[in-house]
């Protein structure tokens, strides 16, 4: 894979990682974290680690945002 693809992946990871940290609202953070997970998966794929990329997609882009969202729903209901 050409250096350019890896460079794009690294920049994407850095940008979305920073965005995740800078997002203050946990609800919106769940979404930016999902995009961060996707960026990491793209990075792993560009480094030819297909298995790790797949694991990263299912954990980072499905499992973690889902659990964060449902936890937020639970916590928010208690505050009502």
């Amino acid at each position, binding site marked *: 894979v050409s250096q350019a693809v890896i460079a794009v992946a690294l920049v994407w990871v850095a940008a979305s990682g920073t965005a995740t940290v800078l997002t203050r609202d946990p609800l919106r953070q769940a979404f930016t974290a999902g995009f961060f997970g996707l960026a990491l998966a793209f990075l792993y794929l560009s480094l030819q680690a297909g*298995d790790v990329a797949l694991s990263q997609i299912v*954990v980072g882009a499905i499992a973690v945002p889902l659990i964060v969202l449902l936890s937020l729903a639970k916590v928010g209901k208690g505050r009502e």
Partner: protein
Amino acid sequence: MSRRARLMLFAAAAAALAVTLGVGLAGLPSFGSQISAYARMLNELAPAQRHVTDVVSAISFDYRGIDTLFEEFILLSAVTGISVLLRPFSDETRQLPEDTAPDRTIPPPSPAVWLLAVFLGSLLVLTGIETVTHGQLTPGGGFQGGVIVASAVYVAYLGTNYVTVERFQPSALLEATDGVGASGYVVIGLLGLLAGADFLANVVGLGGTGNLISGGTIPLLNLVVGVEVAGGFAILASEFLDQTAVIRTRRR
């Protein structure tokens, strides 16, 4: 602890972390350097020894199968812990999210959403099964495929409602799936002992390289891990959905 003491503790811990991390990172092979001798050896040996085309699967389910066994039980204990933690407490009660007001009805989900959920859900199940069964051939395997299968349940929830999804996944069945999948790994490991070899030894016929049925115990282990992970993630989703949709505080 005062603010000053906390900052001191943080500074000490951060310095220790920076030093450890720096030393560790300095020892890494440089970016884009040649792969290690161990990786090169496995790349050459695994296709011939185990009849697989995805060497990563051969490592995680055969050469280092015992590690995956422990990882699987980490997931099992995490799911068990969440189930225990999220049970209804003494001041909470279960109540199905049905609207009892007589003067209004809940509009059903629009046909477009419903159709999308049916389409996407069946596609996810198919992709999940494909990922689980082709673990020895292409990237993927039981863990990834299991999560994909379980995510079909989330899509079903988005397209319909809580009561419909609950009919799909009785909790007894989910828990049995999780347990059977986890113990299946041990049972397949015991096959090796029964055959007079080591625990988790690859004693099943290896088949032809590149075929769907190849790699001996690797696809079998992928299958049980897939069943376990699918059950585990479905339990996670249903526990959290229960928390948000069904379990209410008693005093109101």
